[in-house]
């Protein structure tokens, strides 16, 4: 029976097979430099290697992908449920996400915005455009603005009253409100930066471009309380029109299976496409098209011919206040992990999940379910308090 554990074993086999398959021709210079950076014991850590992080070594050859492809004909454990509809006897095949490239390969065009200089070939040749600049220096060509790294902070709403069915009554509890306020304060501190950083561009300020929010009451209340903290600090932030695409629902099948969840199959059928659409809407590298974000234009938006953009902040932050299932699904999809694993994660109330998308399409998760900013007594996962459960 195919399982993710066996996938891990397959990957291990591929180490030896790929080392046999390695071609030791002339390495591109960039790879040599990158390898030098990796020779440190604690690689990826120093300055050199941080630029290496943005100039990833090319992926493996076909060997790995062949061995990593899950067999579509996997038999279920006891054989009885598998009439071709179930994968491994555990979840409906038709509801499973089909990646463009087999796990664990990385799809360079995951957001449809790959260009010739951010393709697999470009990375392989060491020509991947890792810098934010558009290198087009021809005359008479309109110079595009510097592309930014997109920092997305997903915030789960605070604890709410779950007793009634209609959304308008499912409002934040007093604890939920405290959580939202503490989260807002945390975000204002991140946005504000600090003079205490020893060496940090812009004092570590993170300009929060927008706060997006679902169209459910508990999220909207949370977002308002967060925005209030910004206002109290005289910091500008713009809460966008509520977006029902971000509303809560079951987004994908759950593996390991959850037979206790009633009506899961139907709910996934009704909501999966919508939630995937939300993912594509919010998760993509910076490109030249603005989304429907209502913010007043600033001077940095202007096209200028100034070659020196060292002073320009190449990072943009957005907050999305929504829901546990949505966040966990987005986390899996953004990292190109099987979304059927979403319920292996656990996002507490007002937790922060933080993903960065580089202009070259690379994605990094810096935290998932971060609740350290909340007082211990104000930590909850719905009705459960603290961690001893």
């Amino acid at each position, binding site marked *: 029976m195919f399982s993710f554990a066996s996938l891990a074993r397959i990957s291990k086999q591929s180490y030896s097979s790929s*080392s046999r398959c390695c071609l030791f021709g002339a390495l591109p210079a960039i790879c040599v430099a990158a*390898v030098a950076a990796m020779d440190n*014991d*604690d690689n990826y850590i120093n300055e050199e290697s941080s630029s290496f992080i943005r100039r990833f070594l090319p992926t493996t050859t076909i060997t790995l992908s062949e061995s990593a492809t899950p067999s579509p004909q996997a038999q279920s454990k006891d054989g009885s449920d598998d009439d071709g509809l179930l994968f491994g006897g555990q979840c409906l095949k038709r509801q499973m996400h089909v990646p463009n490239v087999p796990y664990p390969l990385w799809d360079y065009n995951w957001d449809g915005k790959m260009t010739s200089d951010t393709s697999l070939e470009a990375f392989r040749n060491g020509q991947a455009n890792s810098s934010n600049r558009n290198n087009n220096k021809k005359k008479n060509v309109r110079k595009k603005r510097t592309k930014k790294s997109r920092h997305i902070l997903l915030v789960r709403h605070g604890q709410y009253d779950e007793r009634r069915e209609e959304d308008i009554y499912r409002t934040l509890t007093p604890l939920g409100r405290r959580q939202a306020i503490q989260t807002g304060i945390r975000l204002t501190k991140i946005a504000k930066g600090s003079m205490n950083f020893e060496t940090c561009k812009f004092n570590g300020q993170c300009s929060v471009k927008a706060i997006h929010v679902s169209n459910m009451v508990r999220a909207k209340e949370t977002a308002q309380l967060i925005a209030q903290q910004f206002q109290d600090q005289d910091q500008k932030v713009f809460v966008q029109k509520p977006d029902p695409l971000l509303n809560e629902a079951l987004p994908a099948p759950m593996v390991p299976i959850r037979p206790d969840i009633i009506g899961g199959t139907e709910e996934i059928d009704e909501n999966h496409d919508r939630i995937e659409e939300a993912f594509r809407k919010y998760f993509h590298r910076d490109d030249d098209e603005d989304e429907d974000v209502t913010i007043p234009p600033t001077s940095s938006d202007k096209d200028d011919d100034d070659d020196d953009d060292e002073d320009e902040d190449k990072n943009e932050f957005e907050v999305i206040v929504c829901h546990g299932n949505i966040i966990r699904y987005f986390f899996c999809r953004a990292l190109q992990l099987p979304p059927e694993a979403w319920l*292996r994660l656990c996002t507490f109330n007002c937790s922060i999940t933080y993903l960065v998308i580089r202009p070259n399409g690379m994605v990094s*998760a810096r935290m998932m379910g971060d609740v350290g900013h909340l007082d211990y007594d104000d930590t909850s996962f719905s009705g459960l308090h603290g961690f001893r459960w």
Partner: protein
Amino acid sequence: MPPTTGDKDEDRRRKRQTRKEGVTRHVILIRHGQYTENEKLDENRILTELGRQQADYTGRRLKEMIEGVEVRVSNMARAKETADIIASHLEGVERSEPDSDLNEGRPSHTLPGGDSYVSKSTIEKTDDGHTRIETAFRKYFYRAQDPPRMNILVESASDTGDDNNIAEMDVTNIENKNSGSKHEFEIIVCHANVIRYFLCRALQMPPEAWLRLCTFNCSLTYLTIRPTGTVSCRMLGDIGHLPYDKSTFSMHSGFNW
């Protein structure tokens, strides 16, 4: 856990019983604080002043989160230093001997980033690192099957879970009500690559994805392992307990990079 009998009802009954009587293991992985990276010898690669402050904040955070804990640590100076500072905040702590299997290394190849063009030495490094770090994974990640150790038992409060919104809840809630189940906490102070690899393996995700994660200094990565073998990640790279201006990813400060 007893093997499956083939009878679904009986299996379910046994599973419930295991949950009621078994021990949940809470494993919290902590990345060491910021350290002097320019030094060559491990004994000189020690925490910076900021790194020590980070460890201090972390000790305080852990004290409020858990009690009766076992502290494990790699055999590298920066981790041992971090663990010492953390342990100084905790009471009733059991300290294990440093474990070299938890030392930093390259646990697996990375995708994106692959391995078809890397040098032979990197491949060898990965082969070494992988064997050792996978050994560490198997050593520390398993479900509790033996009777719980009495000195580090903590009874869970019998909170009433709310099962109106099942979809948002971990599987544990429903069965946990008034179960009096037991909990064991373990802290492992080690390194970014090891932590990220452990997370992928524990959640049964492709380990080649480990470099898609980014764990800041003194971040908390928290996994629960139920007596039934279910694994859940409650936080990854949590640094909310640190003031923003004390947040570092090695020599990067803050988030604006």
